[in-house]
């Protein structure tokens, strides 16, 4: 039980805990905040998996931009807490629960076949390159086309979001 594994387990546990809080909480603002903490814990986990660039991007983009956007939309729409009335039909809840259980069992079986739950699974050593330069080099050489396509995608999303959300009565 090395220190790295301990910290990773702690970070993963924190992420899972706050993910549960997010799913369970009634108030959507608190859900978003719980998810922020969860993503921050995931960023810590990413650092331990030798991906510091992705950890930084996770915090900057996911926790620091996407979730802020969620928060702004929640405040703009003044979304109320989820009340008791208008609850889903029971058949829907039962079927969803059954589907989740089946899926969870299948996932566990898959992970077990990969040796996930054995007592002391094979550890790997993240001795590979873990600095920013390697990832960036790959991004700009092999995946350059995807990278440029991504920027076009972001531009399209920007224009699309603006077009969708503006008021009808504006000139």
């Amino acid at each position: 039980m090395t220190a790295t594994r301990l910290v990773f387990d702690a970070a993963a546990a924190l992420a899972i805990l706050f993910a549960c809080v997010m799913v369970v909480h009634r108030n959507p603002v608190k859900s978003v905040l719980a998810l922020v903490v969860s993503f921050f814990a995931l960023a810590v986990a990413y650092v331990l998996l030798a991906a510091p660039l992705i950890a930084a991007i996770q915090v900057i983009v996911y926790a620091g931009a996407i979730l802020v956007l969620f928060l702004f939309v929640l405040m703009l729409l003044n979304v109320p807490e989820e009340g008791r009335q208008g609850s889903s039909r029971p058949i829907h809840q039962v079927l969803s629960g059954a589907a989740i259980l089946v899926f969870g069992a299948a996932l566990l079986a898959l992970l077990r076949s990969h040796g996930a739950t054995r007592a002391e699974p094979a550890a790997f050593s993240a001795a590979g390159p873990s600095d920013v330069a390697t990832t960036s080099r790959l991004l700009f050489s092999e995946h350059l086309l995807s990278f440029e396509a991504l920027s076009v995608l972001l531009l399209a999303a920007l224009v699309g979001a603006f077009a969708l959300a503006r008021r009808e009565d504006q000139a």
Partner: protein
Amino acid sequence: MIAGGIPLGDVLLASGALFVIGLVGALLRRNAITIFLSIELMMNGANLAVLGYAAALNSVEGQVVVFFVIAIAAAEAAVGLAIFVALFRHTETIDVNRINLLKW
């Protein structure tokens, strides 16, 4: 600098758990924004699994994949929230059970 010692199983279990929790949220909540948040959580679970394998197989390609996933998630979140805002302006509710005008 990272000494390693994280079993792949730990990573996969965590990622599976996050995915299933996100699935629970996406299926059982009624607030459209919370459903969207749960979907983002599922994507993060998948990201964690990809990074776990990237570290285990000593490959950097996994990090590039996750980079693209995060950026695409940003684009999708922007458009999805714009749709919600437009929808909310018309229907005054965010409960997905009430938004049923297209049902037969």
